[in-house]
């Protein structure tokens, strides 16, 4: 595996450093505590930086971490010390853009959580066990979306009963949470 470009983790955190979706592919962080500690330190190190127009980059514990933020979403991709930064950068960009497509431009925490299934599938389509599967955002989003006809398709394409079910669900949900 030493020659193959490897991704050690992909993180999607909120504006307070809380997890939305994370995926680890390396043994560097064996326990949940170790993972949370890593997330905390990378968040503390980066949250004040303006990484909203271009992806930014830093080193943390001999890992290279690339990150890009939008609204209250913080995207991170981590690779080893000697990894080609530009390869990691295409992974981050692929992830970032694919999520953008899947959330139809509504990039924020609430939307991300409501479509968590899409985000998890998206991660699954980008990396398999550390190896890059796909970096083209359109292809990634295309694969994810085609898998979830009911929730991602526009209302017009849903059958009446499905639409009713969706509406009912939204209604109950807002009642419960309100």
């Amino acid at each position, binding site marked *: *595996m030493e*020659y*193959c*470009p490897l991704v050690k983790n992909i993180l999607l955190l909120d504006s307070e450093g*809380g*997890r939305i*979706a*994370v995926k680890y592919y390396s043994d560097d962080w064996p326990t*949940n505590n170790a*993972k*949370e500690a890593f997330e905390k330190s990378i968040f503390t190190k980066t949250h004040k*930086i*303006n990484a909203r127009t*271009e*992806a*930014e*980059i*830093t*080193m943390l514990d001999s890992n290279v971490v*690339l990150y890009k933020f939008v609204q209250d979403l913080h995207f991170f991709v981590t690779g080893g010390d000697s990894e*080609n*930064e*530009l*390869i990691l*950068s*295409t992974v981050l960009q692929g992830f970032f853009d694919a999520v953008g497509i899947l959330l139809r431009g509504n990039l924020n*925490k*609430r939307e991300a*959580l*409501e479509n*968590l*299934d899409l985000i*998890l*599938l998206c991660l*699954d389509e980008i990396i*398999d*066990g550390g*190896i*890059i*599967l*796909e*970096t083209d955002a359109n292809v990634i989003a295309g*694969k994810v979306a*085609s*898998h*979830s*006809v*009911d*929730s991602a398709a526009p209302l017009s394409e849903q059958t009446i009963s*499905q639409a009713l*079910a969706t509406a009912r669900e939204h209604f109950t*949900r807002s009642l419960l*949470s309100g």
Partner: protein
Amino acid sequence: MSQYVKKDDDRDEEAEYSPFSGIEKGAVLQEARVFNDPQLDSRRCSQVITKLLYLLNQGDTFTKTEATEVFFSVTKLFQAKDIGLRRMVYLIIKELSPSADEVIIVTSSLMKDMNSKTDVYRANAIRVLCRITDGTLLTQIERYLKQAIVDKNHVVASAALVSGIHLLQTNPEIVKRWSNEVQEAVQSRAALVQFHALALLQQIRQNDRLAVSKLVTSLTKGSVRSPLAQCLLIRYTSQVIRESSMNNQTGDRPFYDYLEGCLRHKSEMVIFEAARAITELSGVTSRELTPAITVLQLFLSSSKPVLRFAAVRTLNKVAMTHPMAVTTCNIDMESLISDQNRSIATLAITTLLKTGNESGVDRLMKQITNFMSDIADEFKIVVVDAIRSLCLKFPLKFRTLMGFLSNILREEGGFEYKKAIVDSIVTIIREIPDAKESGLLHLCEFIEDCEFTYLSTQILHFLGIEGPKTSDPSKYIRYIYNRVILENATVRASAVSTLAKFGAMVDSLKPRIFVLLRRCLYDNDDEVRDRATLYLNTIGGDGSVFETNKDVKEFLFGSLDIPLANLETSLKNYEPSEEPFDIRSVSREVKSQPFAEKKAAAKKPTGLGAPPAPTSAVDTYDKLLLSIPEFSTFGQLFKSSAPVELTEAETEYAVNVVKHIFDRHVVFQYNCTNTIPEQLLEDVTIVVDASEAEEFEEVATKPLKSLPYDTPGQTFVAFEKPEGVPAVGKFSNMLRFIVKEVDPSTGEAEEDGVEDEYQLEEFEVVAADYMLKVGVSNFRNAWESLGPDFERVDEYGLGPRESLKEAVSTVINLLGMQPCEGTEVVAANSRSHTCLLSGVYIGNVKVLVRLSFGVDSAKEVAMKLAVRSEDDAVSDAIHELVAN
């Protein structure tokens, strides 16, 4: 669950909404029962799976029973025809990582999906099955996987290939059988299939150099399309270059043209990978380097931080070995000092510090001063380290650099940062004698207002050693005594010791120091009072404690010659009685391992933690040898060699030898380790045959009483030799001992032993053993001051050599001298080189050597050797060393 509680709090404040508010594992597991419904509701099931995945993602764990239960109900969902739901099922199966007996349940469903008409099913079923399967199942599905690798749907092919890469770790013999299919996939038109196939193919063949080389040869001709695959190919090419350069004599590097061609690729990722590969080529020439540096320089002014970072990080590494090549980027680097991204700025600064020339130092320091105020400590430490190296490189610039260090020492900062600065100042003081006085004063000012007890005590200790040797020791007293008045007990005690050292070394200060020490007798801490009393009695005493001044100094400055662990054991065993504790009763037998560590530390005396002088390894050995009565009359130890191994690694007994050189004697210290748990060795001696060392005569041996398993011990053999003469010779050795069987369960040895012998390798005493490595900070001054009176110059032909570098290091090792001013580094592919060496020859004669090497096209190396020393005979002796 604190996470969710916190969310609730948030909601009270800002009405934040989350679909997972108040989610709770038990409830979700209840909900998972819908998976068992006869009429499956796909939407509902998907949602429940998402909730389960959410819990796992947040770090929740399922117990074994919970996981099994969820897994079983999830398997029911294969009945549903909904694609979205199926994808979620795949995801959760991977997350649950089922055990082998559970896997069987889903195998048939997954195999059905693998052969489905829906590509999405096929690709994912392959990935899931390969993730959870074990070897036995793999043989069953192998046929399908091989087909999938060459499938026309590239998602399916990629899925099979990536799974192959993972499976190769666990079932290499199976995956290796797929190499024909993988080979075919390398030719695929789909970019990522090609990438994955290339990754797998190389791993299948990684132990077959020829195959990898063939692969690279055929692919570099240009059939690789995807940038990722191209990056991989560049990595393989570098590997092939690394392995082939060893047997390539012609000088033209294979595949360099390919790497250079990649610098013009349209993808930045490939350009960068190629540039990096070129900079990492071993023995890269400046001609090869130039095109790579040029593209990296373009990246430096990119608008993308990632590109700037990647380029500056690579150039920073290049600057360590080829500083001149990077100087062309200096202007771009300087503009990066103000980069928003502080990682980039720090890398730029440290690169500049490595590439800068002497005249640019002042300007650079000005820029850094502005920069230091707004970066974090971790970056500052990197900069401080770089400044220390710069100072050692340009000793004449120490005023500017020391001034900078003292300024940042006064500013705010954490312990690690302050320690880095103090360590740097201490190193500079040690290496550059002219910097001593100003450096010590900076440290004094620092401890006036230092919040770190550790640093204060370390500086006080250092001050005690260096301060008395300065031209005006009295000016430090005020700073030290201020500590006694103002600081905590630990620092006060330390200050008292430092005062005592000044008192002992500087007679003119003695009366005044006594006044100060007497005041300390009223301190409210007992350690401070005790120390003051002790020192008043030792230095100012009537001779009742110490008889001579030398003893006093030995007591104050000498290091503790007893292993602390041994002292601790002895003190624990001591029972209070009429008889006082006698420190001489403590065993001095030291494990050999710590020596090695101390030697390593002594080689790099950086900072306060390091021993006070590079000779401390000798000191330690000196103490050890003096403690052995047989050797105590040999006088001052001149030099101890590094350990020479006399056994192969992993043999029954591991033995190495340290050669101790005295004026009229040599002592061989054999460090022995018994690696057999079932044996105890007794009466261990070394029988030395010195028939090939005519000038040596054996005078004493000190056997080792017992050598238990894995506890190193030492035995010694001493030889007499003509005084002051660098006698050389070869010694062959035999380990002789009585071996006793040990019962491993009880650890008890049997009564009777058998005599046995073990042949060791031979070693030589060579001329370099009589040469001490002692550096000089300014070679030119030292050379001039020695004068041409005893200069001897001659020229030698060294014959054909592998390289200039090899010739230079051979001569350095032969002479055993200290290379000065970094001249031991030979620039790659240069035709000539000058090397400056300094050392002290036996009899304490200072020797300086100037070596000029030249190499012609046939690799014939010629050398001009100029020696200056304080003694005619020694200059000649050096020439004889080389002539032989």
